[in-house]
């Protein structure tokens, strides 16, 4: 006589769900999607700044996640592993977009030294007294105004805590380029947060 075991998926930890999904359990994988879908979408949106593209790429990331699930050995959390997948997809997408457009003024400025280096240094804190949610809104608004190279390097360094070397590898550029992009991005952010630079 066969014995049926009911699995309480919502109460399982990620590790257990991943193990079940690795054995082909789609319900376990659906639970993982349910838990982390907002985080994966948010990362895609922070890099692409386009809702439709972010939805499509986060969906694609989950499909790739399922395909590569056997390669996940728990070296990081499942959420971190999935975030890396969506970041790589976003970078591919951004590279494709870059190929079909001409150099932006931002890139030209970066090559010449940039206007950011010439901006006066800000002091004191232009965001002092803001509520946390208000501050986050302001940071998000400022991020949206950066070029994708500057935004990406900031997201990878500040939100994903990646080191210069890893960022360079992901963005397929030199560490020197990462350092200069990060510098310009921070200076621009400082100016935007202080309201010194008019919105584009």
């Amino acid at each position, binding site marked *: 006589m066969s014995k049926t075991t009911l699995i309480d998926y919502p109460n399982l930890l990620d590790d257990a769900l991943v193990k079940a999904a690795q054995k082909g359990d789609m319900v376990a994988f659906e639970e993982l999607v349910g838990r982390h879908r907002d985080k994966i979408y948010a990362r895609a949106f922070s890099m692409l700044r386009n809702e439709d593209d972010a939805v499509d790429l986060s969906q694609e990331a989950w499909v790739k996640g399922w395909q590569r699930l056997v390669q996940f050995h728990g070296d990081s959390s499942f959420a971190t592993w999935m975030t890396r997948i969506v970041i790589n997809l976003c970078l591919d997408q951004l590279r494709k977009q870059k190929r079909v457009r001409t150099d932006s003024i931002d890139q030209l400025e970066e090559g010449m030294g940039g206007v950011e*280096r010439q901006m006066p240094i800000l002091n004191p804190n232009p965001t002092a007294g803001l509520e946390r949610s208000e501050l986050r809104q302001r940071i998000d608004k400022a991020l949206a105004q950066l070029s994708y190279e500057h935004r990406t390097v900031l997201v990878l360094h500040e*939100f994903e805590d990646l080191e210069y070397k890893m960022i360079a590898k992901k963005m397929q550029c030199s560490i020197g380029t990462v350092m200069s992009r990060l510098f310009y991005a921070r200076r621009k952010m*400082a100016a935007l947060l202080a309201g010194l630079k008019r919105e584009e």
Partner: protein
Amino acid sequence: MRAEKWRPCSQDSSGRNNMNIDQTVKLQAYLDNEVSSAEARETAAWLARDPDARQLAEELTLVKKLMAEGEVAVKLPESREFHWSKIQRGIAQVEPRSEVRRSRAPWWARILGPVAAAAAVVLLMVASGSFDVFRLKSVAGGAQEIETEEPTDDSGAITFRSHREGMTVVWIPSGR
């Protein structure tokens, strides 16, 4: 870059920062803990004697600190069910899951599987009356030891005899 190469950050009459890019990115790397301990000591010493560099360091640190406050909470603009249905379709299109399952079969199952299949084929041949397979009047290395006899009537029976073992087996297929 060595600390001696750092020059005091100068600003023009409009307050613009004229520090060169090599200096600034090195300062930033120091703030991000991306320099060696020797470079860190040199940069710290340079910061201690240059107020302009300190001011820039404060700004970079401030942005870093503000970013650490986190991101705006963004939610997926579609329901869980709808999102999952699209993912399911995507999975169905790109990969038959059987490939993954096969790779996870234990080693003994991967070996026994083909052996069992071959045995099943032999048994089927026997059951279907393909007796020629067993028409071994002699077997290499044991010519006088093993004999088989093909059926001589409609019963389909086959006899296997081993002189060494002193054994005789008569196979009578069912369904005859």
